[in-house]
């Protein structure tokens, strides 16, 4: 696997966050032309690995869940990582445990599901502890990787996102069109937005995904989202100095100040480096 993942989700290991992984994967799958069965295989296997982290990695507590997706030559590589207790004994030895009760366990059943659906599975124990489930799925021929491949620098948001935030890094940023609207819609649903306002969130996501490219400092786009009841806070970066404002205001996309008109507040915050971070707030007032 090459270094920078095309999609990287950093999530608190909560059950509801597995949905975000599925939404991101479905968007990516549609973008690279997987059919419904291939998408279902990918989603089902990765869900098993994520549910295992949620249920078992931190012994009832919460910790980081990292999902990285890489588009490779003829393959999609997915790594599901935690910093938890580790798998210990080969879970295959526990294959007999009950399927109905342990819906979420990467016991033999979960692993058997992954093994049946992925082309390759590898269980690794990263140096810092925890578990890394690495899976590989076939990528159909003819996927135009050149449009996806990019020399991307490793970026993260300059200021750390608040605890509990969902962080999403997409490289190159053009891939965001396939992923950001879905993930943000799911988060808007979690914030109890009405369908009306979710549709606005999608428009904002579209606008950002389409227009942020040139404003970004590097090839990748980082988005951190904090969810509160009827409110979503987004931080997008790292942007070139002076670009945050123009991303909000310019009419470069269609009728345009889509971002300005559909968000409730916007703020540009300087980041530690030379660049800046765009902060957006969307509220559903009903």
């Amino acid at each position: 696997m090459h270094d920078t993942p095309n999609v990287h989700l950093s999530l608190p290991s909560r059950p509801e966050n597995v949905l975000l992984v599925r939404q991101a994967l479905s968007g990516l799958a549609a973008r690279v032309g997987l059919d419904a069965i291939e998408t279902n295989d990918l989603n089902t296997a990765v869900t098993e690995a994520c549910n295992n982290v949620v249920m078992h990695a931190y012994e009832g507590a919460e910790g980081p869940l990292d999902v990285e997706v890489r588009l490779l030559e003829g393959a999609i590589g997915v790594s599901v990582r935690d910093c938890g207790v580790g798998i210990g004994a080969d879970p295959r030895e526990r294959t007999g445990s009950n399927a109905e009760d342990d819906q979420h366990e990467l016991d033999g059943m979960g692993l058997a599901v992954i093994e049946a659906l992925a082309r390759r599975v590898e269980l690794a124990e990263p140096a810092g502890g925890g578990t890394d489930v690495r899976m590989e799925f076939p990528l159909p021929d003819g996927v135009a990787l050149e449009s996806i491949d990019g020399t991307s620098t490793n970026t993260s948001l300059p200021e750390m996102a608040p605890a509990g935030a969902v962080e999403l890094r997409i490289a190159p940023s053009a891939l965001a069109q396939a992923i950001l609207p879905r993930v943000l819609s799911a988060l808007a649903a979690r914030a109890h937005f009405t369908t009306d306002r979710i549709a606005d969130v999608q428009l904002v996501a579209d606008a950002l995904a389409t227009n942020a490219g040139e404003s970004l400092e590097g090839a990748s786009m980082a988005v951190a989202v904090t969810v509160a009841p009827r409110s979503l806070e987004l931080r997008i970066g790292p942007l070139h100095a002076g670009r945050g404002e123009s991303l909000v205001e310019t009419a470069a996309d269609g009728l345009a100040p889509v971002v300005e008109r559909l968000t409730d507040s916007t703020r540009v915050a300087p980041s530690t480096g030379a660049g800046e971070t765009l902060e957006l707030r969307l509220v559903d007032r009903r």
Partner: protein
Amino acid sequence: MSSVTVEPTSSSRTAPGRGDALRGASSNELFTRWQQHRDPVAREALVRQYMPLTRGLARRYGRSSEPFEDLLQVASLGLLKALDRYDVERGHPFPSFAVPTILGEMRRYFRDSGWAIHVPRGAQERALKVRDAQERLANEHGRSPTVNQLAQYLELDAEDVLDALQAIQAYETLSLDAPRPRADGEVVAYGDTIGKEDERYELVELDATLTAVLGRIPERERAILRMRFVEDLTQTEIAEHIGISQMQVSRLLRRSLEQLRTLAHASS
């Protein structure tokens, strides 16, 4: 947590209420009795024992797709095949053999039924249901529902609703575009609600490129853009005005913004 043990040495529980003949019979005995002597009672005991695993797989693999009962049937067929083909002698636990067999059966079913290519039947029906429920709830409450309200109303997962919203955005083939009655029951032709939009656009500062490209998208879409971005109507209000669904408004908005971007890009 109950556990179904299948190691050769341990004794398996048999289904409750089975006759004495089965009590204490190990899985391996049951396999031998079924595979070598075609004992239907043994097979039934095995089916009962592994039905939870089969059901779990149908649920995990088949979510958001076909009706669960259909899938369970397909998965069960996979279980029967696995019961026939499992080789006790090789010493692997049965589930590690059954899981890929059952999943394989479900994949084949999806493949054969054209599920891979077409909008899955379940997903399509669900999208239409979600759209209709959205309208009904919006009319009842005077504002559009949340995803949870839709999920509760339709007895679906929130994820199913989200996927449906996505499908409505994506699939042109869903017949979503027919004119529909307004809340007051009156059917409105699009033309009635559209007009005089051009002067209203002047309220917004638009650069020359945009003004030029705006003229190239259909009238109805232009009207929707105006209502949302100039008059600041909500999508639900727009939907009521022109007599289409909010979801359709959403789709048209997304599409026309995309069109505008493409046009603006091409002419700049």
